[in-house]
């Protein structure tokens, strides 16, 4: 069985889903089922008076592991606060750590992320940090003991695909010295997910590309197949590209109706 681990949790699915932006809980639930996702992220937000809060959300997410995020945090202190509330709400020790100061590009703050990770680990959290494709930062987080590193493929929600490929290849090369690498953010198509899985990275996290598809359930299935195809291709050992062509048919014995070549 081809499994992977986040902390001490063993997972079969290499597709983590974000729960944001789905038009209703029913579609979200069907999409999770079609994706065969085992882990789904959730956010923590203030309640409004007399608002039902997350009524229906927990029911829609029944049977999957909830991964609370710190989305909305701009500093390490804010991330810590949100993470502690997430732990109380979900009863889970793990947290997807996001510290994002800039709303235009939604790029993670490496300094604040490192600071927050250190504090969260001291408090017993299992930390899954969202980062830029920065191998130096990833190794520092690994040395602290984070359960994963989650480099971005492109800005959150952009659907640009694997724009950071050259730098993600370094993550693949350095796999042995890293915790599981989950490519998070920017994937727009199942082929993007297949691409990073073919590189030997461990998993992907997808939200917008599925939630904003015309048919989110079908797209969730397509992403599942993309992830599975990419993973199988990696395990199968891809051929090495050549500089010139290489015929697939024998070069000898071509019936030319004349002298041998």
């Amino acid at each position, binding site marked *: 069985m081809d499994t992977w681990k986040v902390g001490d949790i063993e997972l079969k699915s290499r597709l983590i889903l974000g729960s944001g932006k789905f038009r209703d809980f029913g579609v979200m639930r069907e999409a999770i089922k079609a994706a065969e996702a085992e882990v789904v992220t959730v*956010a923590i937000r203030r309640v409004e008076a*007399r608002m039902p*809060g997350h009524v229906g959300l927990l029911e829609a997410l029944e049977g999957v592991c909830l991964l*609370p*995020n710190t989305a909305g945090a701009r500093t390490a202190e804010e991330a810590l*606060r949100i993470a502690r*509330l997430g732990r109380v*709400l979900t009863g889970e020790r793990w947290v997807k750590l996001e510290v994002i100061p800039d709303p235009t590009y939604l790029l993670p703050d490496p300094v604040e992320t490192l600071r927050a990770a250190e504090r969260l680990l001291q408090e017993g959290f299992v930390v899954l940090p969202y980062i830029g494709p920065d191998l130096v930062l990833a190794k520092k987080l690994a040395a602290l003991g984070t359960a994963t590193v989650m480099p971005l493929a492109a800005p959150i929600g952009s659907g640009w695909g694997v724009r950071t490929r050259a730098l993600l290849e370094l993550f693949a090369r350095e796999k042995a010295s890293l915790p599981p690498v989950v490519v998070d953010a920017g994937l727009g198509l199942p082929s993007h997910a297949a691409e990073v899985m073919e590189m030997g990275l461990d998993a992907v996290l997808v939200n917008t590309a599925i939630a904003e598809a015309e048919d989110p359930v079908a797209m969730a299935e397509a992403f599942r197949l993309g992830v599975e195809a990419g993973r199988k291709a990696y395990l199968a050992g891809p051929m090495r590209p050549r500089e010139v062509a290489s015929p697939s048919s024998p070069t000898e014995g071509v019936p030319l109706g004349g002298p041998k070549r």
Partner: protein
Amino acid sequence: MVWLNGEAKPLEGKTLREVLEELDVDLSRVAVLLNEEAYPGRELPHRVLKEGDVVEVVTLMQGG
């Protein structure tokens, strides 16, 4: 004044539980941050709010 979810409100003298009852939220689905301590909605400390307290009442939402 007490800061409740980012707004200054005259809640001094009320208990946390009273504040949550006024918000009319399901206690099993919220968490409360009182200053820097987080509590499940169903396990609130008996605490009378005082001037300058910061209270956040939160719940899970959809998010990526």
